[in-house]
């Protein structure tokens, strides 16, 4: 294969719009999610330390920062889920029209925030 393939231009070259915002966010969130998954693996590993030591982790998770972290994880996963569904629609040949693409982009942005709130409330058994 040709090793002189053209590289993507850096992000500051593009003019900002919904599609570029979602595209770049999708990549950033993808990288953030591998960090989150590693933290989840670490959380599972810390369970091996036993019940007494786990109290420190529980204290952190019940604090404001712990809750903020959990809400951040929900948003990050939700954003990736919606953005991935948008990509899958494209793969099946739907949603390429400019107007549809903008609407689906807005659904990803606003939907991720709305779903984050709904998932948190649902998970906490509030409704």
């Amino acid at each position, binding site marked *: 294969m040709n*090793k002189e393939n053209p*590289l*993507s231009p*850096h992000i500051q070259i593009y003019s900002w719009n919904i599609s570029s915002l979602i595209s770049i966010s999708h*990549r950033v969130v*993808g*990288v953030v*999610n*591998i960090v989150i*998954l*590693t933290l*989840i*693996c670490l959380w*599972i*590993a810390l*369970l*091996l330390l*036993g*019940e007494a030591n*786990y*109290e420190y982790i*529980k204290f952190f*998770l*019940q604090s404001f920062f*712990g*809750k903020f972290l*959990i809400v951040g*994880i*929900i948003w990050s*996963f*939700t954003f*990736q*889920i919606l953005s*991935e*569904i948008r*990509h*899958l629609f494209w*793969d099946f040949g739907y949603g390429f029209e400019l107007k549809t693409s903008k609407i689906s982009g807005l659904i990803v942005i606003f939907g991720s925030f709305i779903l984050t709130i709904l*998932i*948190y409330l*649902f*998970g*906490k*058994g509030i409704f």
Partner: protein
Amino acid sequence: MINATKKWIFLKASSIVLVPLMAWFVINLVSIYDKDYVDIVNFFSTQPSKFLTSLLMIVAFFYSSLSISEIFEDYIHDEKIKNFANKTLNIFAIIIPLFAIVIIFNLTL
């Protein structure tokens, strides 16, 4: 079939599996994260969460390594650095989920 096509098919197949798994995990995460040690160990050590969490780890790290290697392809100019970054990423994406799965299958109260 060229490598790029294979990579694209693996990426799409893993994303189809990943979407429901991520949704399942994130809903359960909210309901357990602030619970007691016993409740969390119970969650990870009983079925179906034991199997689904393990599957999530395998698919998510596989998907992430494929998609991050695309970023390396797009933005890393030096071929040697790119190869090193890809190898490091692949090793990381095998070791971390494997480590988590071994722990999940050894969790007991």
